[in-house]
């Protein structure tokens, strides 16, 4: 039986924390929550969708980016490295605005685009939000994948080759799984960083959780309470991501 023992100073700290939370619950205004519950949940859902889709798409992009840098022909390696430097060297907010305002300002000049079926999608902020977050995740993760690919022991790859394995089979069966296993522990932190990057999309009028709370603050003139609840929700999300990773880790080690 694992015993759960709380040292006395933690009990005191917890009590102080509970008192502070209790005082906040009584003295601050929370009556706006029921009216905005549906909006907050919708924003939360969109934040989660954005987090999951951009992380998956970004990771899929990061694999070729890492592979090209670790083992690709020189021009390809340079291109991949240049991409990662570009992404990692500039703020995500700037990349987002560059895509949304910059690319968006070019599209009207393309003949025929305005009448095509693509147009309604191209004027949708979600498309640019998805694109910018995916490209950014790929840039940071590509750099990590490069290291992971390079650190797979050479002997294993040589063994596969000496068995007559096709290079693609080697990649699929040995190189990629070994590299991915290596980056799994770092993915926890990367996912939390990606979660913290999602509110930026509110600046191009995509309505995620951050934007919903921004609207609440504008409509109710309440300054702090929505901010506190929003911070708490992000904290819980980050905690859940970490818990999920711990669960996967402990299942694997058994």
């Amino acid at each position, binding site marked *: 039986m694992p015993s759960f023992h709380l*040292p006395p100073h933690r009990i005191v700290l917890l009590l102080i924390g509970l008192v502070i939370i209790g005082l906040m619950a009584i003295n601050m205004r929370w009556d706006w929550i029921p009216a905005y519950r549906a909006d907050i949940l919708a924003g939360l859902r969109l934040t989660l969708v954005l987090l999951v889709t951009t992380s998956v798409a970004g990771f899929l992009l990061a694999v070729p980016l890492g592979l090209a840098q670790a083992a690709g022909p020189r021009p390809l390696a340079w291109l991949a490295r240049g991409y990662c430097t570009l992404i990692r*060297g*500039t*703020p995500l907010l700037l990349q987002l605005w560059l895509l949304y*305002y*910059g690319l968006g*300002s070019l599209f009207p000049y393309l003949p025929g685009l305005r009448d095509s079926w693509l147009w309604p999608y191209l004027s949708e902020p979600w498309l640019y939000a998805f694109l910018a977050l995916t490209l950014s995740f790929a840039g940071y993760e590509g750099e990590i994948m490069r290291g992971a690919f390079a650190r797979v022991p050479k002997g294993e790859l040589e063994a596969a080759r000496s068995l007559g394995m096709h290079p693609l089979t080697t990649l699929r069966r040995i190189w990629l799984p070994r590299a991915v296993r290596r980056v799994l522990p770092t993915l926890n932190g990367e996912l939390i960083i990606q979660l913290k990057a*999602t509110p930026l999309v509110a600046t191009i009028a995509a309505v995620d959780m*951050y934007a919903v709370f921004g609207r609440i603050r504008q409509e109710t003139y309440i300054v*702090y309470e929505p901010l506190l609840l929003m911070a708490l929700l992000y904290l819980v999300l980050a905690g859940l991501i970490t818990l999920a990773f711990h669960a996967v880790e402990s299942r694997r080690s058994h």
Partner: protein
Amino acid sequence: MVNYRDMSIGELLALTPPGWGGALLNGLSLSLQVAGGGYLLGLLIGVAGAAGKLSGGPVTRDLLTCYTTIIRAVPELVLILMIYFGFPLALNQLLTTLGFGRVEVSAFAAGIVVIGLVQGAYATEVIRGAIRAIPRGQLEAAYAMGMSSFLTFRRITIPAMLPGAIPGLSNLWLIATKDTALLAVVGFTELTLASRQAAGATKHYLLFLGIAGLLYLFVSFISNRLFRTLERRVTPGERHA
């Protein structure tokens, strides 16, 4: 109204109005100042936090863990709003209870506090890791020689931890320069917001946002070189290599 449509790129980027080059450089300088101030504040918090985490009492350690966990899990954009609106209020409440008059907190000062608090949480972990990597024998030897703990910290701990801490600290500086862009959401005219204002006024979005990107890349390129030189300087045994 200035007619931006017929201006050449050179005229658009001219340092004096109607060109927007001066506004961009002004934004860059503001970005670097806030990043620099925040970074220094973050280093101070980081050294104090690492010292507290390594040799503080159980209460100090728990409170510091709360600080680093919360700061690292809540989006910077949310923290900026909270500190930007909360910090002046808290400061003025403190000042009025102490009997002083109210002060105006500028966007600039609030920006430095925000970046500093965020950087402090990460710097605490970087410096703590670097200090823990120092062989215990070195510190014990210093105590055995009769050095006071402050002298040990200054003469042994700091020089011995720097080679291990500098890669992390250089990464933090790059994060600080990029995090200043987030101050755009509270209307602080740093480089990103300046470039967007220029782009919005002239309708040359790709040009101005692209130039801002190049300026950020330039800053990170120069910073990388400086930190690499610094790392070579503080790593013992490689100075003369």
